Every structure is written in C-alpha cells, then in structure tokens.
C-alpha cells in the first residue's frame, strides 16, 4: 500500500517500491541502486534486471538536470481535464532521465531544450504527493 498517493491520480496501489512515496513525503525524489552490481534505476525498481538481485538501496536525485525535451499539452486524458493545459518534460540528471511536469509558474515560452532544471516536491491538498520541475 501507499503508491496510490503518487501523483494527482495514481493507477497503482501496491508496489514493492512504494517507499518512493515516503521519500517524496521527506522531500526527496529517489531512485534505487543495486547493491550487488551498482546498476541505478529511475523509475525505481525492486528487482535488478542486470544481475537478477533484489538488494536495493535508495538514493536521492540531487542537484540540477537539463531539459531533454518537452511539450505543452492543451488536452488531457479523463481524470486530468481540470489540470490542462500543462507542460510535460523529460529532464536528464546525469545518466538518469526523469519524466514529470514543469511548474505552472514557469511560462512555457521561456522553456528550451538544454535548460537547467531542478526538482521540487509538491504536496497536493488532497494528501497526494508528486514532484515538478523548476528552472535551476
């Protein structure tokens, strides 16, 4: 249990990596790293596809990344209509890529591929928790 609290609308309740949500509560966007073979995973995984192990440690994504690509969507799927328009971004933090939304406080016209961004944890009024990007 616990994963249903991720995002404005989650589609999953139970996950071995539900600790991801606990880290968000603590203000951290976390990934997992295999203690056996050092493979890092974001999104976090409970199981290592590289060595088949499951001894994972949690690490926080820190510092700033850069925008790899983005889009500003005028339309939203069912359940997200009230949130549109919004901007979806893939940002690169070293070898780790993270998909999320840009903060609505940032005008989309100012965004560019390669622009530095940082992660901000967002606690929503209904108890859900997520993250978004801000200019770094």
């Amino acid at each position: 249990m616990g994963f249903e609290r991720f995002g404005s609308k989650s589609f999953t309740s139970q996950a071995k990596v539900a600790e991801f949500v606990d880290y968000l509560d603590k203000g951290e966007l976390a990934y997992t790293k295999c203690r056996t073979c050092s493979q890092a995973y974001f999104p976090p995984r409970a199981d290592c596809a590289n060595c088949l192990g499951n001894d994972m440690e949690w690490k926080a994504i820190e510092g700033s990344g850069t925008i790899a690509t983005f889009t500003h969507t005028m339309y939203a799927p069912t359940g997200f209509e009230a949130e549109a328009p919004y901007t979806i971004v893939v940002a690169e933090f070293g070898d780790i890529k993270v998909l999320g939304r840009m903060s609505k406080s940032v005008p989309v016209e100012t965004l560019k591929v390669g622009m530095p961004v940082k992660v901000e944890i967002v606690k929503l009024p209904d108890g859900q928790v997520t993250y978004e990007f801000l200019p770094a």
Partner: protein
Amino acid sequence: MPKDVAVIGVGQSAFVRGYQGSIRELAFEAFREAMQDAAISVKDVGASVVCSAPEYDKQRTPSGLIAEYLGLNPQPTFLVENVCSSSTSGLRVAYSLIKSGLHDVVVVLGFQKMSEITSADSQERMGRGADIMFESPFGTLMPAYYAMHARRHFHEYGTTEEDLALIRVKAASYGVLNEKAVYRKPVTLEQAMEAGPVCSPLKVFDCCANADGASCIIMASADKAKEISKEPVYILGLGAATAPMNVTGRTTFSGLDCARLAAKEAYEMAGVGPQDIDVAEVHDCFTIAEMMAYEALGFAEPGKGPELIRNRETYKEGKIPVNVDGGLLSKGHPIGATGGSQVRTIVLQLRDKAGAIQVPGAEIGLVHNIGGVGIYGNVIIFGR
C-alpha cells in the same frame, strides 16, 4: 531471399467515425473482401489470428466471438495485442504458424471500434499504454509523447513545423483518392500551419483521427499459395523489436530504436536495402512519426528526413513513395486494424492493382507499423 510465406488475400472495411454496427459485423466486412479476393472458403483456413486492443470493447476475449462470426470454428484462434501494431504482430504470428508447418492458411483479422467510448476516455486508455506507475500519473497522452520526439528532432536537426505540415499536405492529397479513408479533404500548407495547438509543437493537422475499422490479411505457405492464388505476394523479410515502454529508458528522442532495429532485421532477412524499396507504408499516427520513419528505414540519413518531404521525394512520383494511400493521417487509425490496412495497400501495389495511387512497376514494398510511442516496432518487406 526467402519466399516461404505469401499473402493471398487482402480486405479492409471503410475506416469511419461512428460505425453503425457491432464489432463482429465490422470484422466481417474486411473478412468477406479478403476471402473473395483469395477465392477460398472457410474450410481452407487452418487458423485465425485476431488483432485488437480490447480495452475499447465490452466484449471480453474477442477472438472467440470473431472466429465464431467468421465461420472459423473449430479452427484454433489467437488474440494478439500490441496496441497500434497489433495486426502486423498478428502477421508475424501467422508467419510462424505457417513456416512451422502447423497450418497452411491463416487469417489475420484486425479490428477496432473506438467510437464506443469518448475521445477523452480513448486518450486515457492510450495514456495507460505507457508506464502506469511512473508516467500516466502526470496525465500523459499519445500526442504528448510524439510531440516530445518532434521537439527533440527540431532541436537536433533544425526540422520545422512547416516540414511536418508538408507531410500532412502530402497525406491529404492522397486521402482525397481513398474511398476507405475517414478524412478525404485536401489540406493546404496554410491550413496545417494555422491549425490549433494540440501538444506543442504538434497541431491539429499533425495528428491522425481515431476511427472504427477492420482489416483482413490471408496468408498461406508458398506451396499452397502457388496452388490456389494467381497473384501471391511474398513476405521476403520481417523484423520486430521493442524498446522500454517508459520513455526515460530510451537512448534517444529524435527517433525510435525499435523501428531502426526492426528495419535492420527485415532488410537483412530479405537481402535488400532501403534503395530497393519501391513503395512504403509507414506508421504516421502523427506527422513526426512519418519523419522519424524516413530515417529509421534508411530512406534518409538521420536528420535528413525533412529534405525528403521538402523535395517531394516521398510523393508517388518521387524517389521513395510513402503512404500514397493517405496514411493513418487520412485513413484514420483504428488501432487493431491499422497494420493490416498498410499491408493491404502494399499488396495491391505489388499486384499493380492500386488504381489512382499505383506506383508504376512496384516490385518490392515495405510496411512499418509501430505500437505505442515506439514500444513495439514491426517492419515487413514484400515482393512479387
């Protein structure tokens, strides 16, 4: 160049908005046409492969229902689902069933009735065709993913919104000629450029429409094909590959690795190269998808796709005609039926029976069909 398996019959329903019939009746329209084309009876069919993304239907396990309605009991049937590439994945399954010797003749029936649900609900289902734990909670949707690929293509290669609009203008010029297409009006460059935004930089005319439709491909072993078909079209090569569903696992956003790998495999198997292809059907659910296909298939070097369309090389009279049936952009995109429709166009081309869109003397054709935003890639090469 292997010639072990052939297509002996093709059929397609009209692709429409709001089909006034049930899924079984929709499937039958394509089946009837393909069976009449192959001039065989249900007794000749060894198995069926039904291709659909069944989350659009109330009907559970639709293969059973469809096989019954087509009169294909008691032969075995299988449901194949790879979202938008379902029916070319079905073709791959049928190829294996035939090549293994299990069956001589296999029907591949793709269908989708998307109008059973609203467009927003459809986007929600398609959005869940991504990683539901780590992507869908952000309200992702298909055009957003392809838009992010467009943005990256623009960034790396200087591609422009006008380059993408030119692809829609081409598609529409052929959609006008296709009686089975859902969108049959011409689109001018100005119209495409001035259309409202969907997911930047993609605008309304950069996107295909949902549709209801069915396609049917009848395949046979080479021996059987020679016995019963006057104009078999052979499968010379086929390739299939996957890439991580979650786009953060991808190595690039300016192309689709699954398409590149599937193309390489198909070319190697067929013993031909991009320069040998006379006519191609590529998965243009969005204009950027066709642009990336030019490059994945080797019709252009990476980043040189825009030159192909600027120089009209992918028109019927060009160096490599692409989507001269109007593509998904004109035909509409009934998920499970799409790949089979692409195959049908290529088969008609190679039989020299494509009518107004015939590429003169076409001998080798290619189909490129993508599932999701590059999760599944299928490339198939056909020859006479």
